[in-house]
Every structure is written in structure tokens, then in C-alpha cells.
């Protein structure tokens, strides 16, 4: 769906409008840092895109957040340094996570909440797990409030629930492609998130739309036919086939956008197809500008995206 690309573009869009941004990567190997031409992310914050310049952009900072690290932090914060080493070294986190599912998720969300509360960044963007997992990830707080009735985990889960439920602090940005199956999944996910998690949904980002091309308004066969004699026949045939392919894909995309609009009453942000699979700083900025022209007010805290 290009959710990591959209995460990068959203971060850069916020930075270009002067807001400091932290991207939190929780699944690893997303390729995010490579897009910015930077080395692999670590648990320590590192700057992915330096701000400054004539437009006064802010920095884009990023870090990873794994359950093991989050657990160590959590235990240290709660004066449980003594057991923390043992909990992790015996692999007891797996055991605890099995005893209370969602505990890994809540450790991560709890840490995100802590970062948000610190006020060190204007915007925190979480590159969340994909579709099915996103729901259980965000639902972990509600589940744990019920499962663990007392103690620090309960407190943590309650605080996270408050963050997720406050549209001024947190919104989920869903990312999809203008194709049938991704649209179906997006609609399912959107309703599940609203109903089960009670989290507020921001605009839907539809990625990979073929940009409009004036020359395609006319039937490519006619244009190629008219040019016969001025170019090689095999070239004209390729021109016609490529043009027809794009017109047909564009029609499918338009139909899917319409279907999405009917199924889900959320504003849509449309990002262009870039005709490359190599996303670098130039492509991210291109998408960031596309976002900025369509997004009057960037969401408050938390971008998650299947």
C-alpha cells in the first residue's frame, strides 16, 4: 500500500511547514531510512532529513521502538530495574506477553504516549503494523484494561486509551491503493477501528494514482493512427498499447475511488503514481508537496497506516 512511503511524505510535509516530527518505526526493515539515504534506524533518535534552508523547514527525526526495549524502559521507570534484566534475559517477556496478550503493544503505545506527553515534537508519526494487525495493535489498550484489573499496566493502558480516544491528540491515517481488494480491506479496517478502538480517523490516503495526461483524453489508437508514416510502426503500436493500458488502469482507479467514497464517508487525499519503485528524497518531497496542497491542517499526533 506504500504506508512507509506515505509515513515519510507526511513527516516531510509537516517538517516543510515548520513542525518538528518524530517517526516511530515499530516493525523494522521498513526501508524508511533508506528512502532518506540514511543508515538503519536504532532505538536512539537520529535525524533523517535536516531542516533549515530558505523555507525554514524543521528536522525529521526517527527511531525504532521494540517491545523488549520498551519493557526495559518501562521497568526502569517503575523502579523495577532489579528484575528487568532477568525478565528479558530469560525471555520471560514472551511468557508475560502470552499471559496477557497485547502487553507488547501496550508497552509500545505507552512509550509513544510518553514521547507525546514530553512535548519534544510537534508531531509523532507511528508507522503501524498492516491492516489486520493494526486493529489488534490499537485494541490492545482496551483489552488490557479489562484483563489486568489493577497495577501499573492497567494505569498505562488507561492512559493510552485516553490518548487514542482524543481526536486532538491522535488520529489514524489509513493508506490504500485504488484497487478492489485494498479498498475492501481499508473499509473493513476503518469500521473496525472506529467501532472497536474508538480512535478518530483522519483523511484516507489513496496512493499510486496515475496523473492526468492531456494526450490520453483522445483514443491512443487514433493518435497513433494519425502519426503513421512519421514514426516506425512497431513504435506506434507500443505507443498505442501503453496508452490504452494506462487509460484502462485509470478507469479502474477512478471507479475504485468512487466506490471508496460511497463506502466510507472520509475525505480522500490522492497521491500520484511516481512510475518508479525507487523512492528517494526527491520522490518523498514530491509526495510531501502533494500532501500539503490537499491537507489544510495536519493531524495532531499519531499517523498509523495499513
Amino acid at each position, binding site marked *: 500500500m506504500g504506508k512507509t512511503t506515505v509515513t515519510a511524505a507526511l513527516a516531510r510535509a509537516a517538517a516543510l511547514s515548520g513542525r518538528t516530527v518524530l517517526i516511530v518505526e515499530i516493525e523494522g526493515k521498513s526501508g524508511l531510512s533508506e528512502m532518506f539515504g540514511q543508515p538503519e534506524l536504532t532505538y536512539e533518535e537520529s535525524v533523517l532529513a535536516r531542516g533549515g534552508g530558505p523555507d525554514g523547514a524543521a528536522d525529521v527525526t526517527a527511531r525504532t521502538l521494540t517491545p523488549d526495549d520498551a519493557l526495559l524502559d518501562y521497568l526502569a521507570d517503575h523502579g*523495577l530495574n*532489579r528484575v528487568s534484566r*532477568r525478565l528479558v534475559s530469560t525471555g520471560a517477556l514472551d511468557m508475560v506477553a502470552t499471559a496477557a*496478550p497485547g502487553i507488547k503493544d501496550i508497552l509500545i503505545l505507552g512509550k509513544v504516549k510518553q514521547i507525546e506527553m514530553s512535548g519534544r515534537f510537534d508531531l509523532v508519526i507511528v508507522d503501524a503494523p498492516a491492516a*489486520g494487525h493494526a486493529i489488534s495493535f490499537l485494541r490492545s489498550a482496551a483489552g488490557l484494561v479489562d484483563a489486568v484489573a489493577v497495577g501499573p499496566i492497567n494505569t498505562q493502558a488507561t492512559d493510552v486509551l485516553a490518548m487514542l480516544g482524543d481526536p486532538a491528540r491522535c488520529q489514524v491515517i489509513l493508506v490504500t491503493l485504488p484497487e478492489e481488494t485494498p479498498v475492501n480491506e481499508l473499509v473493513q479496517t476503518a469500521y473496525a477501528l472506529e467501532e472497536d478502538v474508538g480512535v478518530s480517523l483522519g483523511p484516507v490516503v489513496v496512493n499510486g494514482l496515475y496523473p492526468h495526461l492531456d*494526450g490520453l483524453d483522445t483514443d491512443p489508437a487514433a493518435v497513433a493512427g494519425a502519426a503513421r508514416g512519421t514514426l516506425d510502426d512497431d513504435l506506434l503500436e*507500443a505507443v*498505442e498499447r501503453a496508452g490504452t*493500458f494506462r487509460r484502462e488502469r485509470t478507469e479502474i482507479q477512478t471507479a475504485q475511488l468512487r466506490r471508496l467514497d460511497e463506502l466510507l464517508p472520509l475525505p480522500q487525499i490522492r497521491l500520484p503514481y511516481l*512510475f518508479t519503485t525507487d523512492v528517494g528524497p526527491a520522490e518523498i518531497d514530491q509526495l510531501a508537496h502533494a500532501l500539503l496542497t490537499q491537507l489544510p491542517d495536519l493531524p495532531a499526533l499519531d499517523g498509523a497506516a495499513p
Partner: protein
Amino acid sequence: MTADLGHLVADHDIVVCTGSGGVGKTTTAAVIALEGARAGRKTVVVTIDPAKRLADALGLEGLTNTPSRIEGDWPGELWALMLDTKGTFDDLVTKHATEPGQAERILGNRFYRNISGALSGTQEYMAMEKLYELHEEHDFDLVVVDTPPTRNALDFLDAPRRLTRFLDHRLYRVVMAPTRGIVKAVGVATQAFLRSVSRVVGGDVVGDAITFFQAFDGMEQGFKDRAQRVLELLTHPTTAFVLVTAPRPDVVNEASYFADRLAEGGITIRALIVNRIHPRFTNRSATELRALAETRHGTELADLLTNLADFAALADTEERHLEGLTARVAPAPVVRVPFLAHDVHDLDGLATVGSWLFSPDD
């Protein structure tokens, strides 16, 4: 460019489709199973996909944990099922219970319900268990299985061993120690440790875990033996692994990683299937086409030439991403399935995709 993967369904008893999420693995599994039925074999396809895409593709509403037959005009048989992780685990517990009431005690335990529903790796474990069950205990000639969209290729190879390792865990033995009457000192340290854990997650949770381990006592060996047999089946030459990917750098990187890990596990990839390849309309270079477009600047033809140049550049990029991977899986055949104009949601759609995989003429 088509290929003939007929040997996949003719010479194997099991085909495992593996790869990242969102690359068309489920559809590929269904296509291979359909070909199995067409080749006269009694075939079953197991899907794990929570989006029920295979059910859509097969025109079946609500697949269940037991195979249901799909009627069609082919000499063999085609069956399909949707993996129910918890149901499969429940069956396994019942099968391995060593005394009356043991299964019921376990199935009712909250910690067990969490394991069977949420422990990471359980889904992979149960997929392999189901595969084993269908192969050993039913009379299917060919079992095609779609693996969960896991980021770690070893998860499903490792899955059968994962729970048993969990049971071998030091903590488990520590928890069990008091009831087995091992040295008192262990008990004291354990109690202190468990108190610490309880402070974090609450006492009920720890209590549930202890009850579970006590109820499970005696069943580990059965689980371990079976896990070993599942692993042997997966590495047997009659099991074929198919790697499914798409021509994007992120998923190609993951696929390369999968290929390495499978090789480490002593498993050979029998085919690489690349879905969603953009068509290559011309062999001319993007640079040449753009220059040509420049000479017609402002005309409709210029736009069309630019469009052709964009697709030419895209095809180059996609091919470049695949180079390393195709070399890595060699001599396994590489099948390129083009970007389809429509989603696959019926048997005709599966047959269309199948024509790219199983065409002996080319």
C-alpha cells in the same frame, strides 16, 4: 513470457507458498491447487488469510476448518479450507491428552486461550500442523498451503518447535518446580521472581499461567514428537517451496532474506513467482523515447511517447530489482505474472493467472 510449473503439482505431495504479505500469495496458492485438480490429483488448498481473499477467489462464502469441495470440470478433485488457528490447536490438545479431563482443563484455561489465539508463531505452527494432518490422516494427493504474511521466514519453519521450546523454557521449569518437589531453595527464588512479575501484570495472569503449565504436564512429549515429524515432512523432497514476490525493492529484499533462511534450513526453492509485473511495451530506451517526445512537444503524441517512456523506465527498474533474487534462487524457474486488469475473484480468474504458470508450449 510463460513457464511450465507442471512438475510442481505432478511430482510433489505438498506445495508451500511463502513470501511477504500483499504479493498475491493466496491467489498463487489457489492457482496451483486448481492446476493440481486439473492434473487429476485430489488436491486441497489451505488458506490462512484473514481477509478471506481465497474464499472470494473460489466463490466460496465462509470456508471452515474442514475441507469443503469445489465442484468443477476437472479430472481430479479440488478442496479448500480456511485455517482456524484455535480450533486446530484445540484438536491437537484433545489428541494428546493423556488422562481424562486433562483436555477440558486446558481448553478452559485463560492462559491457554491466549496461547492458542495470540502467541506469535501459533498461527504458523497450526498451519504446519494442519498441513501434516491433511497429508497424513486424509487421502489427499496434494496439499497446497498459503503461509501467514510473516516478516520472519523462519517463523513457519520454526513454528512447530516454537511451542515446545516455550514449554522447555526455564521459567516453565521454574514454575513447575514446587509441584515436583525439587529443592526448596528454587521455590523461594521462584516465588520472589513471580511476585515481581505479578507486580507488573497482576496476580491473576501469573496464576493462570501456572495452572496452565500444571494442566499441560505430561503432554509435552506428544507435542514434541509430532513437531519433529512435521519438520521432517517439510524438509522431505516431496515438499516443494514456492517463493512469491512482487517487483518492489522492499518485498524483493524480504524475498531474498526468505531465500537465504530457507537455504539455511536445507530447503530448496522450486519456483519463484513474481506477481504484478508491469508490461514492457517496447525495447527502446526511456531516454530515446523522451528525446523523441521532446521533438513533438505540445502534441498528444508527445504525451503518449512520454507515457511509453515512463513504462519503459519502470520495466527497467522492476527487472533490475529482480536480478539478484533470480540469481539467488537459480536454477529454480522464475515466472513473471503481469499486472492484471482485474482482481481475481472466480475460477476463471484463477485459470487466467494459471495460464502464466502452466504453459508447456513456451
